[in-house]
């Protein structure tokens, strides 16, 4: 199986995004490295706007993720409510 991954800058906003990712993506792996947090999962990983908003306690635009994003691997799909990384096979 192929792994998708996303890395975020280690800061206060990312911590909520990571919590939200952890909640909706069962069995994802979270790796802390200096100044960054890397999250991996087999096949597919989703960031859900509503869940991030719940954790942050404020409105959050999915495109705000660009501010904290470092890198990613997988085919991207983005809409108002979610951001998905996926390998098709």
């Amino acid at each position, binding site marked *: 199986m192929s*792994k998708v991954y996303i890395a975020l800058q280690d800061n206060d906003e990312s911590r909520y995004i990571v919590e939200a990712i952890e909640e909706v993506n069962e069995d994802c792996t979270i790796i802390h*490295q200096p100044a960054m947090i890397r999250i991996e999962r087999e096949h597919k990983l989703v960031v859900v706007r509503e869940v991030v908003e719940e954790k942050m306690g404020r409105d959050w635009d999915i*495109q*705000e993720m660009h501010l*904290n994003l470092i890198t990613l*691997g997988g*085919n991207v799909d983005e809409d108002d409510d979610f951001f998905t990384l996926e390998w*098709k*096979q």
Partner: protein
Amino acid sequence: MAAKKLNIKDKYRLLTRDLDWDFSYEDRKDAFPYEEFEGLKITDWDKWEDPFRLTMDTYWKYQAEKEKKLYAIFDAFSQNDGHLNVSDPRYVNAIKLFLTGVSPLEYQAYQGFAHVGRQCGGVGARVACQMQALDELRHVQTQIHAMSHYNKFFDGLQEFSHQHDRVWYLSVPKSFFLDARSAGPFEFMVAIGFSFEYVLTNLLFVPFMSGAAHNGDMATVTFGFSAQSDEARHMTLGLEVIKFFLEQHEDNLPIVQKWIDKWFWRGTRLLSIVAMMMDYMLPNKVMSWKEAWEVYFEDAGGSLFKDLARYGIRMPKYSEVIEKEKEHVSHQAWWTFYTHGHATGFHTFIPSDEELDWLSEKYPDTFDKYYRPLWEMAKEKEAKGERFYTTGLPQLCQTCQIPMLFTEMDNPNQNSMRDTVYKGERYHFCSDGCCDIFEEEPEKYVQSWLPVHQIFQGNCGGPEMTDILSEYYKINVGADNMDMKGSPDEERWNKWKGTA
């Protein structure tokens, strides 16, 4: 009544697709003269979509916010004498190499994407290229700003732009980009957008930048991650480009595969410099080059190629050689720089005993057998006051322009050399990969500006080496070059730290 907020998809359609127009009185082919130049078949540009669906207004909004955050950190770094907090003054040599070797590539990427964006017939791709061109311009600017602080306190950063155009080892990154920029627009997009961005820049901007943080360099990690936040978009563009070409026409497959083969090989050669930065120039270690390679090339690249297999794409040619090289390249490259340290614009040094042990642990199959003995010999000589420098000029590979420093992977005691004859002249290469690339486009590579050849032809001043270094390269001889030990950098550092 408040205006209804558009959703991302509608906004993208209105602010991207709907900006395009049809050609009524001009021939479309005249407007996009390079579109068919490389033989790719594109039937429907409307199939192109940016999965981030980023529009220009959102782009400016978030980029402005990134810049504000970044410059606040630069100010704090400089106001608090951030250079005094780096782990070890040897670390700054990695920054010198970054500024002279990498930052000017950001400028070339800007020029390349501005040109290529103009040549794409589809508006979606055009807008994405325009954003990438602006990003790259931002990267070169922020990197120069970040490193200008170091320039006030350390040698070797003052002539980065001049040196990028002339110095022997800097012709490696420079010629890599010139090769891509002088290709057709779609080869450029595969070279830089896909091979370089998607698979290779991750190795420079992720583990190396994390390493900068681990070495107390707040300014560098911040510009690095700020740049990389744009790269995530570039990587996505790179992958979309490949999928788009392959979905447009089956005849595109062999062309795209050939470009992937070429640019993966070119890219891995270029990364030998990054390999040695990771293993030898970061005093506090995060991960070895080999480990970074396994995570970002083998795992991430492996998944990528498995995904692309549905289009008929296979792993890049010579992947099996590349796999073996992760055990060797960083050591072979740093040894070459160490022995040519009189002709470099930064300081070289022998790894500390602790670092040698770390390398032995990280490279159990190769380091003690092939490379540690070299460093033990260098240590003995240095202890006797016989730090040595190679006086000869190295032979360069006609394609990648790297000195012939690589060995056969199955016999690391044997230098790897290939040659071929074209129009009665013999040309030399470091590998089968570079030789193949030459043979595919000999008329391009016979024109390579090879620094050593240029020196021997008398085009770089001289005849003495010190004249070439100081007058032609603008290296401040005796300050910028030679060993870290005994350098003015080291002396100043000890004075600042009160350890003199």
